[in-house]
């Protein structure tokens, strides 16, 4: 990573336990400002777990215990002085499984702006909703049925709706857990374009199972294996000249 990139979020010696079982072992990882960081690794290696640490969604799991230091703009996010609600407003998340609310499509997107009071009147809200849906590449499909339930959309449409919902809140950091897992190549391209565009103003961490996608959208890549961060660095470096044998095996398809 070049020197002038500022660190937006930093994890130091992050360990996560689910009950007795340890899911993450001493992870040290920086997320650079206005960069896309992709997390790759075989299934069950702890990518989602790490992502959930970054906006403290692990708090909602009773048996989950997080140790180590996690900071946002230099401030410890597990500090008592931090309001977790405010933190999550700044660090948004798109989940691995699409989870639209059982409300209308419009209300799904308007949810965040509404609870945070981001808009003053209906026209402004309409604009935010339309804009978010457009950027998530789903506007054309749903513009005539904004009042229908979001749960009635197809899996891929739901996924894009959830992305629209997350960006409507205008978070500083956006965590995306396999946002394209149910999308066709065209929709995937739109989302990747969106990610690239969002990078100008936001910081993004994305979990993906597609090497090509990681290579296309991210500037930095981190490779996880069995709960350990094996290697991290510039995406180009990782994909062309991995230092670790395991990384090489994974990206060439020998493990995973």
């Amino acid at each position, binding site marked *: 990573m070049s020197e002038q990139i500022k660190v937006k979020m930093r994890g130091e010696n992050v360990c996560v336990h689910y009950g007795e079982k340890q899911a993450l072992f001493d992870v040290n990882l920086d997320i650079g400002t206005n960069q896309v960081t992709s997390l790759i690794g075989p299934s069950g290696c702890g990518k989602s777990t790490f992502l959930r640490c970054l*906006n403290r969604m692990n708090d909602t799991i*009773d048996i989950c215990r997080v140790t180590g230091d996690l900071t946002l703009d230099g401030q410890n996010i597990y500090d008592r002085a931090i309001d977790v609600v405010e933190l999550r407003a700044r660090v948004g998340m798109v*989940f691995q499984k699409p989870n639209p*609310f059982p409300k209308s499509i419009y209300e799904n997107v308007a949810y965040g702006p509404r*609870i*945070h009071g981001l808009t003053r009147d209906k026209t402004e809200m309409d604009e935010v909703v339309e804009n978010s849906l457009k950027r998530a590449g789903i506007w054309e499909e749903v513009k005539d049925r904004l009042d229908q339930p979001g749960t009635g959309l197809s899996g891929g449409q739901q996924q894009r709706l959830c992305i629209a919902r997350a960006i409507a809140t205008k978070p500083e950091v956006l965590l995306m857990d396999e946002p394209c897992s149910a999308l066709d190549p065209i929709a995937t391209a739109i989302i990747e374009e969106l990610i690239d565009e969002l990078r100008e103003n936001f910081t993004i961490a994305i979990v993906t199972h597609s090497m090509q996608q990681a290579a296309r959208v991210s500037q930095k890549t981190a490779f996880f294996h069995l709960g350990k961060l094996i290697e991290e660095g510039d995406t180009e470096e990782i994909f062309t000249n991995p230092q670790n044998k395991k990384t090489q095996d994974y990206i060439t398809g020998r493990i995973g």
Partner: protein
Amino acid sequence: MAGYLILTIIAFSLIAFWIGRSAGNKFVADAQGTTVHSLPGYHGAFVAVWVGLPALVLLLLWLVFQDNVIDSLLLSSLPQSEIAGLTPAQLNLVMTEIKTVASGTIFGEPAPHIMQGAETLTRWRGIAGWAMVATSVCLMLLMLFFTRSRLSARFRARNQFEAVISGLMIFCSVAAILTTIGIIVSLLYESYAFFQLVPPHEFFFGLNWEPQIAIREDQVAGAGAFGAVPVFYGTLVIATLAMAVATPIGLFTAIYLAEYASERFRNIVKPILEILAGVPTVVYGFFAVLTVAPAIREAGTLMGLATSPNSALAAGGVMGIMIIPFISSLSDDAIRAVPRSMSDGSLAMGATRAETITRVLLPAALPGIMGGILLALSRAIGETMIVVMAAGLIATMTINPLDSVTTVTVQIVTLLIGDTAFDSPKTLAAFALGLVLFFVTLCLNVVALRIVQKYREQYE
């Protein structure tokens, strides 16, 4: 005799099962080229069912008709000189006497024809009993022979057996439906009789309810008025009070249990809450009369309010306590049935817990919550005991909860207690009230079911 016969039938069925299964086993062993259609067990079950079931039906029919047949035979065998000119009621007496004598209890010195009748009765009963056993056994042997002869390797014993079982299930559900229809028909019939005596518009729109009319000529009573509005109004008042108590408490309890309470606390508290619904309503009744009503009365007097000793508030409030668990338990289940990912999604947007509950969880769980509320409401409308004991009997049109009111169920009880004649409008009014009540709760249940169905669709 019948008891032994049932044991015999069971034994025969077991033997039949064994025979059928052995036959099935043999088909399997002998199978060459052709495959055996059904497992040996199905062959056994097929034979057993067709041996046991007809015998059982025969037994039941026999028991139902035996007494009638013997009675009429006995009656015609009595000496004409003794029974000539007797009314049916007197004949009945004679028959009863014969039966008591036959069962061994002899009072005084019965007339000779009675003694003789009793002897005949005992003899005939013995014959009938043996005839029953003989016929059943013959029937079973016949069926065994017949069904056994039908078995073969390609015989579809499984399908045949399953057809019998599904027939049985249809029979059971039809029995339940027929009972319901029977109740409705009798309600309709009696209500029709009532509306012959009292015009419907008076019943549905009349504001005066004084059903205590004279049944016999010499009684002193009012002329009677059957305007049901105050009665239904009373039900409405009590149910509203009960729901006003139960809905907020139940809902907040549910939210607390589902979202804030620890798993351990919930596991302890929820069953305890559900006990509330299991307490006998009589117990609630005297709790209302002896504890709540005096307390309300005292509080009312302190504040200078005129309070009736039987207040709607006492009955409604206690009823509200009783139906809390309907709302809290069902709402708790509904809230917890909302997928975890919903609340995760909301929290991840930076919503507070309260926002998540009010904006995502409650709307998503609304159908389930409505179902609970409607169930509680139909329970409140149908509840009798608490109101009988605590609310009073006089039908007044009042919204003052400190006054006494009466409800539909209470009126039905009072109409049918004491001196009743089944053709007086007083008694028949109970059926009309019951019919309307039935209709109202039916509607509520249909609405509740509809809502619950919609709810199911949402997450599947």
